[in-house]
């Protein structure tokens, strides 16, 4: 299974004593460079460094096609005040997960709400850290 990681998930998960479980759940994970730039704490950076070194985490090769989808999705969701604010890295994660047909690991309420209503993103598998653990019987 493949996963896309967002910043809030990484920041929370990197403090978890059983964080090694992530590599057991997913053989390949992707992160966008703009998400990586949001992560600054030594604990989270060290954790990501280890994931990169082991080869399980990769930087995502963002394309022009995805940038077009980003612009379209941004226009559809960011002007509505009833949806919690979404920043560029959040929308990028949605587009990546849809392109890869992967699981999106996120603790972001705005992302969760988009997946609840948006016709192109409704089928996306979106898990918080608690849901990830629950799905693996922990």
């Amino acid at each position, binding site marked *: 299974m493949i996963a896309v990681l967002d910043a*809030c998930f990484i920041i929370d998960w990197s403090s978890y004593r059983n964080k090694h479980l992530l590599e057991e759940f997913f053989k390949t994970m992707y992160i966008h460079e703009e998400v990586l730039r949001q992560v600054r704490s030594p604990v*989270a950076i060290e954790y990501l460094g280890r994931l990169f070194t082991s080869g399980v985490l990769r930087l995502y090769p963002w394309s022009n096609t995805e940038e077009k989808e980003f612009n379209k999705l941004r*226009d559809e969701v960011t002007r509505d005040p*009833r949806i919690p604010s979404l920043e560029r890295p959040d929308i990028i994660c949605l587009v990546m997960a849809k392109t890869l047909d992967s699981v999106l690991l996120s603790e972001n309420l705005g992302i969760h709400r988009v997946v609840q209503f948006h016709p192109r993103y409704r089928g996306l598998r979106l898990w918080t850290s608690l849901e990830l653990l629950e799905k693996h019987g922990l």
Partner: protein
Amino acid sequence: MEVEIPSRLLEKWAREDEEFRRIRRRCADWDFINKQPPHIKAALIYFIERGDRYVAAQIAGLSLDEFNELRKQAKIPVVI
């Protein structure tokens, strides 16, 4: 072009937002929050009311990680 959001979802979100806000307000360490410098206090209160870590971090002038540590010290849970 906007995408239509069903009214039942909007009602559900409004109920959730209110419940999440109540939880964050109840759990928060208000003594800690009230002792903070103005921009930090404003960021923590914003997070309690809206639950958005990214914007709260911007208000505080902190990175997402740094604000997250502050949030934990203020005992404000992430509710989702």
